[in-house]
């Protein structure tokens, strides 16, 4: 197919990107122009594309989302319920626009430097040039290209050499206007030996349809340790498409907890590249969806160097007529000997109309490795139910308890206490709310 003309939908999405003001750094404008060129050349993925085989984004393409034109005035109390008390640093973006009044950036936070990308573009241009839009490739990825062509602001979190920041950094993205598109962007750089925790939190004060297209890049230096908590609790009519690329240097470690609760259609691509010997990654995910929701998670754990370790547990709880998709690839390059990798995809179907497509993949090009993966799809275990009922629990509460416990395994690993407790309550409520329809 000839691609000389831009896809009309992409053209509509890109309408605002040309009006962006020039950035103080020439290289950023150049990179943005490159992305714009690619976005113009690419087409909207369909279910005929292997990567999008199970995720039909037609509903998304029916609305021509435009970036918000005005900032919604919010008081701190409006977002009070989202605030994480442990986090001393907080950046708040409303409909993709940074709002300093809602944010909290102490002058000298211990160990960690947090600013917006716009601020840093001048002062730390060299650092940004090296990493920004360098890790999430946009050449053949429409949504990353769209995000990059709109790249103007975002969050920058850096941790200095051997510095540790105990308190998490909270990056809060609030949606308040329907039919708007936001392009959140984050860059996290942990220098060698550094340690930090970053919470990416997508929330909504609006029930309508809006579009969040996020890109996050993380660079974890030698021996550094990054904990990444990602909460997606968009409105049930929203569209959420996000990419995250993580590169790990020697002996680096990356821990990720992803919880997906919201959005009508959501897609999250997480690519972790182990580029240094002995690096380790632990990736946990939970998707709890119902109604007509679709949650798609694609992960890639690429081992390029010897002695890497990776552990992944991805769980889904699917109710109503919801649809969960999981595609987890473990890639062991030639020479990545002594890689130890395990991957599990556990899926719980609660209703007759819910469905799941899961595809754990192994691609291995080194012989001295230990790799395994497993996938299960099923319902609650009859014996476990019987056990609880023999202890006097009603059928409904036994089911709720088991469903809750299934999800809690992932939630309980979240390293931020208040978030963990809040999510536990959410999961409890959601699993309670899921009242029997096919169950007797």
């Amino acid at each position, binding site marked *: 197919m000839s691609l000389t003309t831009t896809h009309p939908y992409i053209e509509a999405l890109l309408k605002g990107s040309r009006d962006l003001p020039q950035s103080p750094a020439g290289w950023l404008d150049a990179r943005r122009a490159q992305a714009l060129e690619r976005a113009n050349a690419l087409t909207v993925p369909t279910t005929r594309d292997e990567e999008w085989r199970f995720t039909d984004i037609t509903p998304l393409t029916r609305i021509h989302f435009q970036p918000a034109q005005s900032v919604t005035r919010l008081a701190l109390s409006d977002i009070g319920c989202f605030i994480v008390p442990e986090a001393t640093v907080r950046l708040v973006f409303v409909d993709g626009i940074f709002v300093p009044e809602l944010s909290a950036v102490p002058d000298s936070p211990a160990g960690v430097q947090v600013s917006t990308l716009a601020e840093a573009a001048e002062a730390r241009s060299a650092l940004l040039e090296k990493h920004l839009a360098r890790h999430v490739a946009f050449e053949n990825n429409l949504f990353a290209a769209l995000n990059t062509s709109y790249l103007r602001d975002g969050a920058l979190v850096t941790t200095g050499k051997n510095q540790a920041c105990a308190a998490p950094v909270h990056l809060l993205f609030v949606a308040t206007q329907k039919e708007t598109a936001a392009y959140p962007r984050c860059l996290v750089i942990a220098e060698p030996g550094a340690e930090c925790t970053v919470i990416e939190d997508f929330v909504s004060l609006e029930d309508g349809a809006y579009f969040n297209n996020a890109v996050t890049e993380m660079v974890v230096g030698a021996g550094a340790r990054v904990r990444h908590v990602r909460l997606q609790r968009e409105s049930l009519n929203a569209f959420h498409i996000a990419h995250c690329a993580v590169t790990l240097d020697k002996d680096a470690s990356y821990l990720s907890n992803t919880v997906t609760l919201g959005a009508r259609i959501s897609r999250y691509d997480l690519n972790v590249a182990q580029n240094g010997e002995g690096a380790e990654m632990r990736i946990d995910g939970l998707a709890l969806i119902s109604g007509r929701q679709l949650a798609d998670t694609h992960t890639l754990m690429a081992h390029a160097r010897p002695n890497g370790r990776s552990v992944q547990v991805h769980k889904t709880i699917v109710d109503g007529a919801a649809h969960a998709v999981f595609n987890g690839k473990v890639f062991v390059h030639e020479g990545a000997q002594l890689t130890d990798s395990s991957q599990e995809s556990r899926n719980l179907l609660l209703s*007759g109309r819910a469905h799941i497509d899961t595809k754990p993949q*192994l691609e*291995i090009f080194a012989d001295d490795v230990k790799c395994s993966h497993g996938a299960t799809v099923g319902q609650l275990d009859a014996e476990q139910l019987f056990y609880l009922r023999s202890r006097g629990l009603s059928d409904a509460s036994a089911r709720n308890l088991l469903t809750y416990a299934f999800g809690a395994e992932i939630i309980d690993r979240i390293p931020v206490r208040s978030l963990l407790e809040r999510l536990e309550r959410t999961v409890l409520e959601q699993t309670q709310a899921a009242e029997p329809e096919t169950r007797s």
Partner: protein
Amino acid sequence: MSTVLENLVNQPYKHGFVTEIESDVAPKGLSEDTIRLISAKKNEPEWLLEFRLNAYRHWLTMAEPTWPNVRYPKIDFQNISYYSAPKPKKLKSMDEVDPELLRTFEKLGVPMNERAALAGVAVDVIFDSVSVATTYKQKLAEVGIIFCSISEAVREHPELVRKYLGSVVPTGDNFYAALNSAVFTDGSFCFIPKGVKCPMELSTYFRINTQDSGQFERTLIVAEEGASVSYLEGCTAPKFDTNQLHAAVVELVALDRADIKYSTVQNWYAGDEEGRGGIYNFVTKRGLCKGVNSKISWTQVETGSAITWKYPSCVLLGDNSIGEFYSVALTNHYQQADTGTKMIHIGKNTRSTIISKGISAGRSNNSYRGLVRIGPKAEGARNYSQCDSMLIGSKCGANTFPYIQVHNSTAKVEHEATTSKIGEDQLFYFQSRGIGNEEAVSMIINGFCKEVFQQLPMEFAVEATKLLGLKLEGSVG
């Protein structure tokens, strides 16, 4: 990795091409005229010609699949002769047979009377095989089993062929199936009537009679209510063929309570150590469990071909039907295999089991690609899959691509996969018990594949075990 294993796997392919072609080759190219010519040459009825033409027209609209994890130069479909029937020159006696080949038969333990047939010797020169074949044929006819070439079946039993041909793999199913439907030249047809249990493994007969399988083979097996049959395709002996592209279609139909067991041992020419030459084996195999309580079981041992691309599948339509897939795929040198299965659960309480063992050595690439699909009406469906890979050497690849699609909440699906290698300590253990490296590797691999070999008919299990040893054989040192 020790050089021991490297040497073990680098055993050269022992036999070159020995077939001299008595040329019956027609002009190259594919068009409706070619298809009419094939059909006319074979004296086919009108409906079959229509079947071919429909397939051809559909094929023209299709694109060659690019999703398999295999690399090969583009095939020029106009550069193939579609109705050539190359016949290997018959040798006069066993004395003319390459002694190396005889040694292979010896090693594999192929029965004496079959060796001649396999080596391409005109069988009647030595054995009275006609009478052997006739005895088999009589025995089968007594119970009402039809077993013949598909061309013969078209002539003798057109109603049966017409009813079932293309009912499992439709003419437009995929690129290569469409091509096969358009130009298939021969293959086997087997029909087991109601309530009949086939008295013998159809393999034995098959091995003697149809060693000249065509480039575009078509197999159709139908088991009526309560019938059962075990069928073995191919054999462990190395198979030479000058046709590089092979696109076969196999269709199985099992009606109520019928049971079909289909076993394949494939050892076609895999190309030399540098990856030159070798056969492209692009096969569509599918079984339909049409009736209640029916069962289809696939067992395959894939050791040959430069490229293997096949997914023997089961469509579990009847309630309580069972699908099974047991596979060993071994690749060495530059071989590429993308193989696996599809289990499509449609009926209630359908069950499927997948056991796949991949062994990669040399610079080969071995992929398991499988689909387990539970339809919305498949209440109580159950699947268990296990895919294990073993890597020998650090230049090869092992991949697993399992697709799991579940649309019913009462289904239970489990998938497990592991990747491992032969450990130095395992070899050391064998050595300390006085067992040489070569034998140790062979034993470890056979242990790894045990669950699959157990499914093979007895004599082939023995041969397959030896075959794997032979494929990985080399000088120890």
